């Protein structure tokens, strides 16, 4: 596949590093991972090219498991001396850290993986002329600003990432993967006479509009087609009533269901969090191992799956960074909590096989358990959003996330959305601003009584999922159809 960035793995240096690791008697396992990331970031704000950037980063990561524990090192150098040097440093760290270990890290062997994976790409985004891409961004910004006051600011963006990854391990794993990711969207900001501001975005909030694929996806997003609606809604929000506080039946459009999954199912099912190894950034999880197979996480209609094979998903790959093949597994089956996102080490602690979710953010980070595509299966009964609205006598439809927060064991969440619509007997009777809903994770998912069908199901991509210390960001996916939740606490985020 054509790429504007140097991407050829330094085969001899990687092999030399692997052989160096194999020579050490106290090395139980080692992995050498070459990563070359090429990124293009384009942003047009208020008709100015706010960001026109291409950046390339490449290097080699080395993770070594010694007698007792891990050591990690990395190098931007691609020659044999640099890679072997990183192996030696990682081993020295593993040995130094071993003096504090109370027990050896469990790490069962597994068969070697071999092969390659490449994102399906019909049109290479890096082959499209820069001026063509900037024109695609300029047009909706110009059209939005052309609406005049009170629309104050407009922005459109297009991000492309190509990642080449080569993984060699002492177990014989030898896999090569090439990923192409994109993100594309726009937002408008309106400012009222009183200085109050409102924002409206499309296709969803910035950072939630990612996908795996090529430039062919841009035509399907078609920002220009949404300019009139986005402009009208952001202006209308300035005079909309705030969401009244109370308890209401809540309907979430599919991208908001995606973020709800992300925070209240994806993260708490990460086994490293549940076991306590992510405390220094984001906390633990209420989904403790003793609840596996016993906790009623949601209503019987709720099936949540971790699927690293979903076509076009940001969490789709061939193998994870420990060489475990991609697959599809239930995390929640018919409402019951049944499995975790796991690594080989954490799964071994529960006597289970890894669910293959270890990924690292580039060549200078260690792999962590990351969400793949964690998705809500569409409702078995099917149905459109219009049908769900028609089935709702009194409720509120929330669209497009604006703020997000959840506690350190992933129970108490609170989201606000850019816009909400009061629903009476199937009709959108009025727009509401600063709409907030809050709840407790299992109580919320148990209140789910309707999920739209496959015709409304869409796979969203989060480009900015943060985890780890030092921080890593990762591409993850969430498939969802709109869904309804009964008796949810709502209010106004601006009325505090």
């Amino acid at each position, binding site marked *: 596949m054509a790429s504007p960035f140097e991407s050829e793995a330094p085969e001899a240096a990687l092999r030399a590093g692997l052989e160096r690791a194999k020579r050490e008697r106290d090395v139980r396992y080692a992995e050498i991972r070459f990563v070359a990331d090429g990124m293009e970031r384009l942003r047009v704000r208020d008709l100015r090219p706010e960001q026109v950037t291409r*950046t390339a980063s490449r290097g080699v990561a080395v993770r070594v498991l010694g007698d007792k524990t891990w050591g990690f090192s990395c190098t931007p150098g691609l020659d044999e001396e640099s890679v072997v040097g990183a192996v030696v440093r990682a081993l020295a760290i593993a040995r130094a850290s071993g003096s504090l270990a109370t027990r050896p890290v469990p790490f069962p062997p597994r068969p070697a993986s071999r092969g390659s994976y490449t994102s399906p790409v019909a049109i290479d985004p890096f082959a499209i*002329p820069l001026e063509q891409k900037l024109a695609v961004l300029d047009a909706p910004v110009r059209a939005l600003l052309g609406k005049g006051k009170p629309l104050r600011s407009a922005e459109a963006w297009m991000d492309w990432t190509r990642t080449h990854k080569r993984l060699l391990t002492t177990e014989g794993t030898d896999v090569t993967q090439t990923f192409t990711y994109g993100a594309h969207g726009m937002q408008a900001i309106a400012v009222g006479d009183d200085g109050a501001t409102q924002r409206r975005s499309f296709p969803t909030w910035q950072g939630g509009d990612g996908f795996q694929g090529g430039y062919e996806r841009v035509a399907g997003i078609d920002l220009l087609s949404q300019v009139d609606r986005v402009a009208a809604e952001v202006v209308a929000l300035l005079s909309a009533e705030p969401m009244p506080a109370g308890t209401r039946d809540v309907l979430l459009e599919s991208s908001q269901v995606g973020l709800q999954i992300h925070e209240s199912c994806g993260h708490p099912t990460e086994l490293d969090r549940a076991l306590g190894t992510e405390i220094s950034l984001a906390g633990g999880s209420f989904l403790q191992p003793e609840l596996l197979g016993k906790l009623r996480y949601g209503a019987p209609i709720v099936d949540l799956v971790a699927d690293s094979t979903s076509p076009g998903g940001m969490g789709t790959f061939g193998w994870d960074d420990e060489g475990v093949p991609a697959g599809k597994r239930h995390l929640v089956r018919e409402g019951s909590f049944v499995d975790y996102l796991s690594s080989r080490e954490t799964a071994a602690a529960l006597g289970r096989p890894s669910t293959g979710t270890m990924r690292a953010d580039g060549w200078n980070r260690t792999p962590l358990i990351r969400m793949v595509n964690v998705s809500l299966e569409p409702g078995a009964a099917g149905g459109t959003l219009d049908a769900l609205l028609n089935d709702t006598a009194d409720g509120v439809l929330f669209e497009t996330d604006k703020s997000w927060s959840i506690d350190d064991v992933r129970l108490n969440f609170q989201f606000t959305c850019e816009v909400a619509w009061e629903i009476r007997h199937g009709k959108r009777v009025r727009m509401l601003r600063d709409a907030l809903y809050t709840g407790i994770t299992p109580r919320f998912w148990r209140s789910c009584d309707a999920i739209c069908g496959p015709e409304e199901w869409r796979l969203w991509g989060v480009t900015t999922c943060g985890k780890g210390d030092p921080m890593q960001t990762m591409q993850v996916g969430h498939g969802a159809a709109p869904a309804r939740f009964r008796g949810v606490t709502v209010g106004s985020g601006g009325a505090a």
Partner: protein
Amino acid sequence: MIGADDLLALCKEALAEAGEAEAEICAVSRHRGFARFAVGELGQHMDIDEPLAAVRVAHGARVAEAGTSRLDRASLVRALRDAAEAARLVPETEGFPGFAGAGDALASPPRFESRTAHATAEERVAILAPAMGAIRAAGLVSAGALETTARAIAVATTRGCARAHEGTVASFKVWALETAGAGGAAGYGGHMHRDVTKLAVAEETERAVRVARLSCDPIALEAGTYDVVLEPPAIGELLEWLSMIAFGAPEMENGTSPLAGRIGERITGAGISLTEDPVDTSDLGFAAPFDREGTARRRVALVEDGVARAALYDRTYAARARTASTGSAMAPDASLAATIGPSALQLGGGDAASVDELVSGIERGLYVCRLHYVNGLLDPRRAVMTGLTRDGCFLVQKGRITRAVGNLRFTDSLLEGLARCDGRTRARSAVPTWGSDGATCAVPAVRLRDWRFNGKSQERAKLD
């Protein structure tokens, strides 16, 4: 790691070889020793290189950027040529004033300590061993991290700007926990210093253990308004969010900043002063003395006695606003996002001799050690934020801490809350932020009246 002087020489050589008339290179070389422990084990001990150069080329007001992780002359020259090719194709950037010239002389705050720069894996293990042991001996579970980082940054332009700087950061954070990952009682301690040997490891570990023990058997408190004392990590996290939504020129320009259109107006309580002070020479200072564009950083009063005074600018936004750059273009991260904001926000201290003095002024309220998952995007114009307490939340009755309280969710306006601030400690602490460039907040503990809590957390899930 490449030193700052070598980095600057490399930048100059690359500019000369590329031959572009108007170009800029900002190169950063960072080496991090990072020992992360959890569940009583040192499971992630890492040796990390983070090299990055961001180059910009301008053809008139047409500006494009390229980045590379390879800090050698050929790679920098290639990046300059890539940026030059793109610059021919992009529209003009309104207000672009050209890249920086030689500029003002730099302040030279103390920032580098070789003992941090050269800390070894064995030294980090030796520092952590007694801390982890003390928590184990207390019957609690340890987690946390020790970081020793050295960073070199250089900026060179074709207009004669040539800056180089080296700094170090040592950071220790520690948790003592009732359970490894299931929540429950928890205590936190943390300290930053440029010298790893001056980290208060034993004191902060003892503090984490003490708070964790006090946090056992919490009572559930109903939502409502409470007077609160916020420890530095708690108020620091709120101010970090304020930094993201309030002080940058882009937020001023698009109207979403709470300061937009209000310079000279009171936006919060009298007595509240917020200052960007990147040249602080005390132990609270970690920032480089120049920004990504090579502009000398300086002290900027953002809010004085509750009155909005100024925002922060890079060169282009400053030109459009007909003001001068404040040296606030943040150092590049992996995405090369152009971020403008504080690198060293400081909240002025008060006259309380201690946190106990602040607590003594509360009839019934809460003492909050730390916050979790704050989000400040609810209503940026009013700086409405939500988040939860974490790692120690206690009921205060008649001026005394009486017992632990289960974690609570707050949703309130920070600026309106600071208007109800009637006490701050004299002593201040540096709190690390998530920003690049070793950004920190230097803050006292504060007392806010009538802070609004709207929910409880850590209710255990019920089995069927």
